[in-house]
Every structure is written in C-alpha cells, then in structure tokens.
C-alpha cells in the first residue's frame, strides 16, 4: 500500500477507536473472603450505572485490611469493605479512607456509626455468641447458662469450646466480651475459672464448630461453642434434609455476646470517586441490605430492611451485647491476647 494510504487508514482507525462509545467502567471493590451477594442484585446496579464491578477477595478481615494499608499509595481498589470494629482503629490511623457522608446514613441507627467523620460507614452487624446444642440440653435436663459467670459452674464442666483469640476473630470477640464484662482486672480470673472447668480451646472456628461442637455435622463432644448468633439460622437454611426447627440456639444474656460491625469506605486515591459513592449508597440501600442476611448471615444496619423469616424464627439478637471502643481495643489487644495465652494455655 502506498504510504499515504497507509497513513490515512491509520488515522481513520485511530479516530474510530477514540470515538467509540464509552464501554462500561470497571469499579474495583476489595472485600474479605466472607463477602457474598446475589447476582441479580449486583447486576441491577451494574446495568443502572453502566459499570462492571470487579470484586477482589482479599483474605480474612485482618489480611484484607493489611493489604489495603500496605498499598495505600497505589490502592488496589476503589472501595474497601470488610473492616470490623476490632480493626477500625488501625484503619483510621493508617488513613486509607476518603470521607463520604452518604445520604443513606439517615436510615442507619446511631449506634452503628462509630466513625464521626464518615470515613468508614457501617454495612452489617452480627453478634458473636455462644451457640448451644438444644437436643443435648433438653435430653440432659440442663438449664441454660444466663450469664458469663454461669459458664464456670460445675454442671457445664467440659461442655464449652472456644477459639484462640490470637488466631480467630470470633475467639478474639469472645475474649473482648469477657474484658468488657469483668474489666481489665477481673477477666483473667474468670478465664482461670473457665480453665478449671475444662474449657476446650482450639485454634479456629472451623475446628471448633465442625469437630468439637455436638450439633454440627461433626457431632463432637462439646455442646456449647463460640459462634455467631446467625449460625442457628444457617443450620436451618443449609440443613440436609430440611429440618422444621433449628438444632441450635444462642445464649443471649446480657454481656454474653460481643457485637461486631462491618464497615465500608472509599479508598483514598480512587480514580472513580463518583461511581464509588454510588456503590456505597447502593450498599447502604434497602435492596442490598435485604440481600445480606441470606448471603453473608449478618444483620443489615439499615432500619428499613426486612429480615428473612429464617432470621426472625431461628436467629436471636442480644439485647445488651458487649462492646468496647475501637481505640481501646487497638491499644490493648496485644496485651490482652498475651495475658490470656499465659493464663489459659500455659
């Protein structure tokens, strides 16, 4: 081809490409591994905003947060979901979030809004509670423990399995519940009494629930396990064959559960600020919030969101859950875990 024709051809090609209608922009959302959502719900958002969402599952909450902090100069994503109240301080100190006061915050109760500057916005919450095996308790005619102190009573000897707070997030939450209840000076004595009462300690939730707990498919020896208040609902939803009632329930007495709230935020340095804001609004909006229970087995923060039947029937909510300020947790976490290890494991 003659050079001039070649150049003309190239010019036309380039202008065609440059003037092509805008394809969908990609919005990257970084989450922890437990994130889940229904395809239709996400698809609706994608179509309404001409956007393609790429989800980056980044490990458990701690790992995902660390990745976000380590890459804050060149963030991996536009939006980061997955920080919980035990890690909130660390996220705030690292300054990874962009502040955004979403209009939907009006539909969320004040107790969940732990960041006054709206850098991290609450999305869902759950309680880490002790789940118990209903059949065991009724067969052995045992009364349920009501308070944390009851767990140290002789009739519950060897019946409780807890997770190591150094390696498990529910384990840490339960430790924090005991600190909140007994105070910094008293919680270790409580744990020593639990140890005297043959409390079983394992490293992870999977082991505690599927090996040690008697009401799971593992049919283990312990009839009480530290898990989530939504686990009984999950047992019903995922039962095979279907069951008419939950095999487990949670202890919901005052101070026995620890409230966990999960947050989302726009990462500083995001190139898609407007879309990110829209996505946050979407996550706080009713449609996504109502999708959360059966996908992630957590409660939605939006007070207008309806709960599925399984939650109202089988999951329970603590009326007075234990909680500690994120800054207090951040300052003392290491010391509490070290002291706990010394008192319980050594």
């Amino acid at each position: 081809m003659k050079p001039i024709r070649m150049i003309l051809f190239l010019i036309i090609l380039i202008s065609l490409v440059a003037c092509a209608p805008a394809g969908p922009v990609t919005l990257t959302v970084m989450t922890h591994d437990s994130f889940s959502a229904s395809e239709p719900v996400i698809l609706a958002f994608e179509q309404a905003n001409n956007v393609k969402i790429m989800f980056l599952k980044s490990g458990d909450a701690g790992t995902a947060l660390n990745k976000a902090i380590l890459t804050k100069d060149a963030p991996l994503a536009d939006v980061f979901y997955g920080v919980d109240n035990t890690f909130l301080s660390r996220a705030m100190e690292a300054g990874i979030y962009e502040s955004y006061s979403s209009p939907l915050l009006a539909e969320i109760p004040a107790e969940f809004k732990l960041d006054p500057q709206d850098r991290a916005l609450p999305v869902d919450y759950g309680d880490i509670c002790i789940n118990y095996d209903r059949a065991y308790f009724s067969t052995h005619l045992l009364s349920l423990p009501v308070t944390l102190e009851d767990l140290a009573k002789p009739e519950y000897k060897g019946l409780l399995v807890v997770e190591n707070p150094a390696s498990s997030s529910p384990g840490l939450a339960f430790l924090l519940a005991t600190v909140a209840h007994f105070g910094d000076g008293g919680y270790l004595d409580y744990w020593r009494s639990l140890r005297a009462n043959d409390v079983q300690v394992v490293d992870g939730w999977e082991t505690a629930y599927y090996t040690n707990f008697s009401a799971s498919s593992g049919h283990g020896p312990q009839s009480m396990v530290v898990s989530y208040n939504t686990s009984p609902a999950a047992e019903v939803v995922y039962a095979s064959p279907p069951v008419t009632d939950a095999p487990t329930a949670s202890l919901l007495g005052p101070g026995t559960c620890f409230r966990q709230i999960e947050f989302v935020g726009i990462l500083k340095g995001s190139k898609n600020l407007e879309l990110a804001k829209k996505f946050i609004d979407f996550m706080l909006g009713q449609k996504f919030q109502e999708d959360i229970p059966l996908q992630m087995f957590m409660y939605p923060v939006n007070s207008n969101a309806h709960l599925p039947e399984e939650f109202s029937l089988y999951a329970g909510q603590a009326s007075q859950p234990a909680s500690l300020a994120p800054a207090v947790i951040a300052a003392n976490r290491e010391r509490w875990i070290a002291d706990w290890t010394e008192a319980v494991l050594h």
Partner: protein
Amino acid sequence: MFKPVPRSDSPMRNRTSLPAWVKPVLPWLGVSLFMGAFFFYPIAHILWMGLNPASITSIDRSSVNLAIRSLLTSFYQAGLSTLLTLALGLPTAFLFSHYAFKGKLFLRALTAIPFMLPTVVVAAGFNALLGPRGWVNLGLMDLFHLQNAPITFVGTFGAILMAHVFYNTTIVIRLVGNTLSRLDPRTEQAAQTLGSNPWQVLRHVTLPLLRPSILAASLLVFIFDFTSFGVILLLGKPGFSTLEVEIYRQAIQMFNLPLAGLLSLIQLLCTLVFSILYSRILRRDPVTSAPRSAQENIRKAQTVLQKIILSVLVVFLLAFFLLPLISLPVRSITRLEADRGARDQVRTGFTGDYYSELFINRRESLFYVPPFTAIAISTGYAALTVLLSLLIGFPVASALARPGRMERLLDPLLMLPLGASAVTLGLGFIVSFNRPPLALVNSPFLAPLAHTLIALPFVIRSLQPALASIPDPLRQAAAALGASPVRVWAAVDWPIVGRATLSAGVFAFTISLGEFGASSLVVRPEYPTMPIAIARFLSQPGGMNYGQAMAMATILMLVCGLGILLIERLRLPGTGEF
C-alpha cells in the same frame, strides 16, 4: 567411499565465538529472571517495609524471645517429623522399587494423594477417623462401654507429627524410590559374592549410592515441615507456635511488620543454611553408576519371611493412607443429620444430595463456584505450573549435575521459595505488583506463578540426582563418536532422565493442585481453585455446606488420583524402559 568429516563439525573444537563466561551462565538465565522477578523482588520489598532502619527499633527483648521460642519449636517439630517420615518412607521406597505385588499401582497413587490435599480436608479426614467422635473412638466406646472418648488425637503434638508423615512420605518414596529402582543390582551382587552379609551390603554399597536422593528428600521434607502452617493450626495444640504461625499472627493480627519481617528473615536464613549444608554434604565424593532399567530390580517375594514382611508393610500402608482418606467420600454420601432426637444415634442414610447441590446456585450467589469450572481452573493452573517449572528447572538441574563455580554459588538459593512464609510472599506480591510495569496483582496468572515458585525446588531436586547419576564416560563416548552436544543430550541424557522428568512433572502437578497458602492470597474470585472452594464451604455452618465440602474434596481426590495415574502411565518418546 569414505567421506572425510569436515573439521568444522568436530565436537572437540569450540565452534562458537562466545566468551567463556556465557556457557555456565546460560542454564541459570531462566531461573534467575523468574526467581528474581517473582521471589527476590517481592520478598526484599516487603522485608524492607518491615525492617528498615526507622522501624527496627520497635523490636524489643520480648520480641526476640518470641522469635527464639518459635524458632526452636519449628526445629523440634520439623526434625521429629522428618525422622518419622524417613522411617516410613525408606522401607516403602524399597518395597516399591524391589517388589511386585497386586495393587502396587493403586498403593503408589494412594501415597501421593495426601500431598495434594489442602489441610482443611486432611484435618477433616483425621477428625472423622480419630476425632473425639471419630470412628475409632466411637468403636472403642461401643466395645468397652466407655463414657468418654479414650483416644485424644486432635490437638496433640502427635497429631502434627502424624499429619506431616501422612503428607510428606510421598516425597521420600518418589525421590529415593526413583534412584533405588535404577540401581545396578550387580554392584550389590558383587559385594555379596565377595562375602558381605545383607547388612554390610546395605551400609557400604546401597546407602552411599542413595545418599544424594535421601538427602534431597530429607531436605525437602524438613523445609516443608518447618514452614508448615495449616497442620499446626488445625490439628495442633493451641498455643503451639512455630515461626510460620507467628509470622501470620504478627503480620496480620498485630500488624507488627518489623517483628513479622524479622521472623521471616530468620526463616529464610535457616532455609539457606540447610540448603548450604545439603550442597556441602552432597559434594563429598559423589558416586555415579550407569542407571539400569527399573524392571531389573523387581522381583516377587520368595521366602516366607519376605512375604510376611511385605504383607505387614502393605497392610500398614493401606491402613495409614486409606483410612483417613476414605472418610471423606463416605461422609460425602452419608446423611449426617443434626436432629433433635437422641444424640448418640447418628441417623444415617445414603444420599447424593451433596453432589447434586454442588451444581446448583441456590442463593444465586455471585461467587458460586461451579465444580467443573473449579476443576478446570485447578487443572489448568497445574498444567501451566508443570510446563513452567520443567522449562525453567530442567536446565538448572542439568547444570547442577556437573557443578561448577556458578552452581556452588547459586544452588542454595534455589530452596528459598520453600522457606519463605506464604504470608510474607503473598504480601510481597501485593506491594510489588500493584503498579505498572508489573501490575500483576489482579492477573489470574499470578496464582500459577506462585505455584511454579514453590514447585521449582521440587522439580530441580527431583531431576538433579537422576542427572547427576549419568556417568560422564557415556557422554564422552558419544561425543567421541561424533555427536553434537544436543545429540549427546538427546541420546544419552534424555532416555535416562525421561522418567525422572515425569516424576518431577507429577510433583509440580500435585503441588499446584493442592496449593492453598499462597493461592488464598492471590487467587481471583472468578478463577477459583478447588482448595479455595472447599475452604469456603467449611467457613459456614450447616449440614449442606459440610456435605458439599466433603463432596468437593472427594472430587479433588479423584482428579488428583487420576492425574497421577495418567502421568505415571505416560510413555515419553525415546525413553523406553528408563
């Protein structure tokens, strides 16, 4: 008529005009680029972030104590595990290489399957067998009318040791077995003719010939046990903390990067030291002998004593490897109800529900993993890993077979990827590859790259003894007869190492299929691998989730087993019986 050979074809003359330093460097080019970009750079980057002069002051006395304690614990459990693995692996290697018996192929594949299974699955299998409500305990409680489970297994040191042996025996069987089956029986026979008894033959003839492969196997097993993570957390006593576990805790839970960096550095240095020791020991009088056909060494058990020992060993192996594994398929088709009735009765019934459920996306979840997709991706990644690691590893193993200065220097560095903590490597990837020019952090190819990094040392160590055993006189004879270096390689080296290459390929395949640690840090949700899919099921309560995890694990085991059997049956062109 006699055609004079042109002088330019003479193999004795160096025809090329390349400078002298090029040839030794050439085999190392591939691996240097690969490891430089995908290992040293990310590791150096993340270590620097933790251990720069500004942050190093945060490491205090108690941190150092913690480091020392974890180091000693790592050593202790790894050392004991390695000894036990050798104790089981060596007799088994001998069994496989010298005796023919019914079901040998099945048993061989069986011993290799654990290696590919993610820890969650193995832990579930052991629990089903030896857990507080496992079959053994339930059986004993029934038999002796006991109230409580007599055997405590999960949560003990013994469980860690046993799981390590379960995982790693295949390394010893493959590496040592390969060499054993190629040993020239005439050497041993000559020794016996000269009056040695079987023990003396073993000590003075067989073991020295096996030394390179036994050392290679021990080194690999030790490093694997040293950096073991899932086994410690899932089966060990809480509070039992090795370097690897502490690195995870400090980096992720405490965000104490300086301490995590220090621990990672210690772990890497230890690996380096072991590697250097290994090279040093190996360099002392290497023994070569022309490898023989594998068939020469195989015979059927003849004396009664041999038959008894053979049967006992085979039964033990079957029990040890089959029983934990068999619980997974059994549980995947058994309905274990969590009902309100009597608790000691486990109502069972067979069901295919868990398998059919795998194919249904009941909650319309965005992250639903269709099983065939997971299988395809896992095997695709595994194939890529095999290709890459063989391509990069073969030249290196060849170079190591005739070590020069370059080899002595670079050899110890090869093992480092195995000794690096998966957490450190994963975080290193994240911080190093999140911007151009190497913006790979979201690439689906990052996972096979990570797998190749881990498979490379295995492949190289697996090929090295075979390549080293080729006697030079054979090569020199071929060259003297007019063969070019490439032809020498094709006609002498390749037939002998062909099977070792297959074996190395199997290693790479199995490592990739079962890899979980590094994968969990870099796998994209649209490209899930099977171990990740299994772990997802086990992270939520519910009988359906547990059953699906068991079903997926069974599928993984079948895919693994099939893969191994296929590769072992493969006959590479030109390798013949070797």
